[in-house]
């Protein structure tokens, strides 16, 4: 894999991580102590998936992967989080699941969007394309999550 591919992939992984696992500084006034780990790991209930036999022309072996990441919780205990991702041959993450039920949650959300009518919908704009000073709702990534993604990248490259 070329360095540039790897970099692009890492960026994608990181942004996907944010989508699913972003840990808001939202309101933690009473606050956790050491922010060493994560704020939003979750339980995977599905069975462990194994990478399927993939196409030969990609940099990665496409398929579903699962890894367990560990992180340190505020009271100093080591905890783990299971992460499942689906990786295409070019390294794109096409699906990601941390809580094992994300898929149904999404379809429910889409169903809601459909029902509510398109004229009332809020449309997002890219933050990078806005003239702004700050972002309200900025995110922390999960240490355990990134650990798991790192393991998956290693395995998918093999």
């Amino acid at each position, binding site marked *: 894999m070329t360095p540039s591919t790897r970099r692009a992939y890492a960026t994608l992984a990181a942004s996907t991580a944010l989508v699913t696992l972003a840990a808001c500084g939202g309101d*933690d006034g*009473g*606050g956790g102590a050491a922010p060493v780990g994560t704020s*939003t790991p979750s339980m995977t209930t599905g069975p462990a998936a194994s990478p399927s036999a993939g196409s030969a022309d990609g940099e990665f072996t496409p398929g579903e992967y699962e890894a367990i990441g560990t992180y340190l919780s505020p009271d100093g205990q080591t905890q783990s989080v299971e992460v499942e991702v689906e990786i295409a041959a070019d390294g794109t993450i096409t699906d990601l699941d941390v809580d094992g039920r994300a898929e149904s949650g999404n379809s429910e959300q889409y169903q809601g969007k459909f029902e*509510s009518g398109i004229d009332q919908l809020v449309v997002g704009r890219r*933050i990078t394309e*806005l003239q702004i000073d700050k972002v*309200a709702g*900025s995110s922390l990534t999960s240490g355990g999550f990134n650990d798991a993604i790192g393991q998956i990248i290693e395995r998918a490259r093999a």
Partner: protein
Amino acid sequence: MTSAWRFEAIGTAWSIGTPDPIDHELRSAITSRIDRFDRTWSRFRADATVAALRAERSVDLGPDAPAILGVYDRLFEFTDGAVSPLVGGALEHLGYDAGYTFVPGRGPIRVPRWSDCRLTGTVLHVPGPVVLDIGAVGKGWLAGQIAGMIDQPCVVDASGDIVNRSGRTLRVALEDPGDPQMAIGVAEVPDGHAICASAGNRRRWAADLHHILDARSASPTRAIVGAWAGGPDPAWADGLATAAFFADLADDRHWTVTLDRDRRARIRGLPGEVFS
């Protein structure tokens, strides 16, 4: 703001922007201030002052108590009991505990009524064992306190709760709760004002579990996925950003925006725009 001081505290990332670097002495004072807050209020610390409320009926919570718990009195009243600092026990029950176990306990749990508690001076009296969680107010309140300690123009950003004392208006993106690369709108935050954000999909540890609980049902909220509030009072703005999940509470000094699960926005007095 040409100088930025970044650090981690109370479980989140902080950034303080100033024209000139904050000197060592003031940094120490700010760090001590935050430490004192954490030692008093963190429900994740066994040595925190609030931990005594798990066993004792009366606990002195120190000089910050009247201001912080006073905000909760108003939030509790205006949301008909949905917002309460006594949700800590229910959060632990659902798995959001000091060990980050994220394994929900079995069976229902009841949140004690905040109206059954009483503050005398700085001493809180509770009817039984409680787990206090000031997550809906504490960070915004603390950000305001820190901003007040800084002897030059500043922007205090506590990851989602921002206090603007820069001398000019800040344009702040309202981050899409579903995609942190996207914004659903932009708020104009004048000098002297704060903006606070709250999202239910963050700090989510299972498909339907997150940290914003309705104290009446001890269950996470579902209809609203994100809320923002702003105005001159950072603690109240922070509280409104949680209260907006339950009630329509904007006033003539503070604005609110909520985004529901169908991506419809409810906009109340926002100085700025929501993209539609």
